[in-house]
């Protein structure tokens, strides 16, 4: 009998397919993974600690930097949480809610494009990467037009939005969603029948529905295991109950199933964006709650009262009642939640972020166990992790 010895290999934190600074300690028997131990925290910036020193309005830019591939979803989760804490959820104007949904879905496309691009690149399909980044660039341009930034948008505000849509923006979105379904067909054309792609992801990273729920998977990763759960439909927020869309579920439990779910979700996002454009009507973009929300920018730059108002709201901060709330939203990666504790002061007493990627990554050791080392790359890709959100 041959003597076998396991070998410990260090993967990351400087490794192109770990999608950031993720370190995996792999115990290998030949090419088979016996055990994987993730090490995280290389990007820990103490967002939760920092937020305790800031007013509720000042925390918002920090949330952009969590899941930096879907900044508007973090903003959305945070502003919805603060609005719930202040009890002004009902006061948000219809136009603001519709634009929030529209931007959230555009952001979902943006995040899924990066996921598909990197996932395919890791497995060797480089063409898809270039195509996806071409379309992502269109979204980046929209972001820039809307908020001035390509990634850290910081566009939503507690009570509404920082600014109305710029001129011509709706036409940009419309021309984007007109071409997007064709592009999704292209990606599927490049991948679905590709025998290498099939062999690399079918039957890889299998996790049963029961195990997935136990380990806390959420979002497309959970729906790929056949669990029909989507917060947009099941605990609707920001008016999602008014849109007609399908929750995409696959029964395969493997990387292929999660690939099918995410591509189907991209098509559903296009459908939702089209509905938001049809519903969009002129109206206010900020709730009428001057004690809590920021004044319109034109008042701030033109009147002394507006300037003082803005200064008071930013530096002192509005004070919610003593209490605690949790608000979860369906991020492209899964459930992102904010748990806020208020002690009645102008700053959050405690802000806990429930990051989707952090919890999803926890499933990695059991998914790679017994698989080949090359599958580790496919499984990291299919979990769609972002280290900014994991390490906070």
């Amino acid at each position, binding site marked *: 009998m041959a003597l076998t010895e396991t070998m410990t290999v260090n993967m990351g934190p400087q490794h192109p397919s770990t999608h950031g600074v993720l370190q995996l300690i792999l115990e290998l028997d030949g090419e088979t993974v016996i055990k994987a131990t993730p090490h995280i*925290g290389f990007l820990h910036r103490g967002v939760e600690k920092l937020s305790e020193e800031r007013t509720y309005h000042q925390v918002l830019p920090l949330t952009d930097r969590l899941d930096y591939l879907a900044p508007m979803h973090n903003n959305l989760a945070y502003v919805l949480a603060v609005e719930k804490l202040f009890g002004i959820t009902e006061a948000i104007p219809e136009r603001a809610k519709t634009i929030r949904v529209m931007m959230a879905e555009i952001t979902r496309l943006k995040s899924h494009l990066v996921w598909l691009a990197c996932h395919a690149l890791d497995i060797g399909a480089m063409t898809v990467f270039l195509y996806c980044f071409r379309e992502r660039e269109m979204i980046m341009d929209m972001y820039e037009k809307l908020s001035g930034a390509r990634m850290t948008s910081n566009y939503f505000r507690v009570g509404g939005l920082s600014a109305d849509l710029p001129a011509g923006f709706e036409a940009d979105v419309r021309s984007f969603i007109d071409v997007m379904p064709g592009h999704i067909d292209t990606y599927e054309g490049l991948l679905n029948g590709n025998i290498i792609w099939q062999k690399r992801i079918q039957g890889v990273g299998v996790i049963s529905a029961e195990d997935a729920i*136990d380990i*806390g998977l959420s979002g497309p990763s959970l729906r790929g295991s056949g669990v029909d759960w989507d917060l947009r439909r099941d605990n609707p927020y920001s008016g999602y109950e008014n849109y007609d869309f399908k929750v995409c579920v696959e029964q395969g439990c493997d990387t292929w199933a999660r690939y099918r779910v995410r591509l189907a979700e991209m098509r559903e996002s296009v459908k939702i964006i089209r509905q938001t454009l049809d519903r969009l009507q002129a109206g206010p973009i900020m709730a009428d709650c001057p004690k809590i929300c920021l004044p319109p920018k034109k008042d701030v730059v033109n009147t002394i009262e507006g300037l003082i108002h803005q200064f008071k709201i930013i530096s002192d901060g509005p004070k919610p009642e003593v209490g*605690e709330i949790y608000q979860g939203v369906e991020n492209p990666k899964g459930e992102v939640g904010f748990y806020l504790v208020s002690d009645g002061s102008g700053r959050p007493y405690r802000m806990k972020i429930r990051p989707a990627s952090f919890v999803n990554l926890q499933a990695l050791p059991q998914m790679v166990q017994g698989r080949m080392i090359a599958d580790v790359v496919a499984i990291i890709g299919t979990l769609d992790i972002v280290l900014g959100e994991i390490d906070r």
Partner: protein
Amino acid sequence: MSIEVVVENLKGKFAASILEVAEFRGETTVIVKKEEIVAICSYLKMSEGFNFLSDLCGVDYLGKKDDRFMVVYNLYNISTHARLRLKVAVAEKDATVDSVASVWGTANWHERECWDLLGISFNNHPDLRRILMPADWVGHPLRKDYPVQGPDRAPYQGGLS
């Protein structure tokens, strides 16, 4: 099944362990005795369908409450889409709670994070190590008596030049 029914059932089953039930913005919070947390969590998972632990975290109430810490469990029921929050008070001199990692596997990393950032220890945890901070870090950064700029540094004075 509404959340009131769940709370009533819980009261019937663990009458002596339910310390307080609070409602705020339509969310229900139940404060329970820390000795019973694993039994209560198992019951809620098995009998009331709270199969998904959304989040687990600690809160430091330094100088605000008799028991310094609270450990907070945000539960979710994937079938009924109901949410329920459990809390247990943890004293500073005995900062330990029984781990619920045996009830929901996802609690593993959440509890590691809670230990790392707040210094609340979990009994029977499978692998209680630091997770976000380096392994040799001293102190627990999310405690209220831990300075925001880090240890041994003067507080940031702002960019006045």
